[in-house]
């Protein structure tokens, strides 16, 4: 790949750091593509009449695994490819609909090196639409402790997500 690949190291991260925001205009295609990419055939993710009449929502809405994929993309945009997700936890307080503009904002809640020497950042991420908090996410992601480290090589007791 022609472009230089940047990997964030643990030493470059501090508690309180803000991640660059990510903004994206959601269309009907975004919702349907995300559902089909995750093999989710449930009609509330592609059939507006079903979503409105059965779920009582105003339109089709983004499914759970596609939200997970968005969070992963947001986090690894920041870390680079050596960033390895250990755990992700999110609460969907509202739904993402076509024509919403979703905005991701994240903050580093803590950093640590575990007993096996793996570097970790804990992040608080919010997905908002306008002034509405749609989903709140906590993530634990492994970062290389230095330029030679690679969290993906950790196995067994050396991987404590």
């Amino acid at each position, binding site marked *: *790949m022609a472009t230089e*690949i940047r990997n964030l190291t643990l030493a470059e991260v501090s508690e309180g750091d803000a991640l660059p925001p990510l903004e*994206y205009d959601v269309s009907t295609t*975004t919702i349907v*593509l*995300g559902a*089909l*990419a*995750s*093999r*989710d*055939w449930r009609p509330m993710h592609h059939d507006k009449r079903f979503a409105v009449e*059965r*779920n*009582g929502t105003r339109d089709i809405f983004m499914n*759970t*695994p*596609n*939200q*997970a*994929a*968005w*969070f*992963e*993309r947001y986090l*690894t*945009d920041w870390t680079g*490819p*050596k960033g*390895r*997700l*250990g*755990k*992700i*936890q*999110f*609460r*969907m307080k509202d739904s993402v609909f076509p024509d919403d503009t979703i905005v991701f904002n994240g903050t580093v809640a803590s950093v640590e090196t575990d007993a096996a020497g793996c570097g970790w950042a804990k992040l608080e991420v919010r997905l908002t639409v306008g002034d509405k908090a749609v989903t709140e996410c906590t993530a634990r992601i492994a970062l290389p402790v230095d330029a030679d480290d*690679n969290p*993906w090589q950790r*196995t067994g007791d050396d*991987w404590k*997500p």
Partner: protein
Amino acid sequence: MSDELPAEVQGWIGEERYVEKTEFPIERGYVYTSCSSVENGNPLYWDEQVAQALTGGPIAPPSMISVWFRPHHWAPDREKRVLPLQVHFDLKEVFELPEAAMTDNTITFGVPVRPGDTLETAQILRSVSPMKKTKLGNGRFWVIDVVYTNQKGEHVGTESYTGYGYKREA
């Protein structure tokens, strides 16, 4: 509706149910489609050299873990529709709650999933709440864990869903 759980549902709590294998070996087409759906340009999934250097070859994004156990919408040898996360649908049926939505999702990731892997999953009901009223309607929350292993018996991940089954108010 009584808040006491039926004996059938009480028996499901903690029980490993619907142990099943993925319907096809993990393949990269879905990896590209998933990355494309969220415009994820992580070179780990697009650049062979990066994948080789970091993970010894291509892997799937960890967040795709649940993708691999969702059944085909239709298959020639089936007599009835197979649903993903069947425990969730069993609870909807038992409690006569026609609608449902997921509210919480927690995923802990183990070894990476690679093209050619075949995964095994099991669903475990952890809890069911008493009836609760929300803006969607009246219903119950339940927590279901899904545990994933690969063909070597390695832990790939554990996913925990909180679902809310409900009846809309008239």
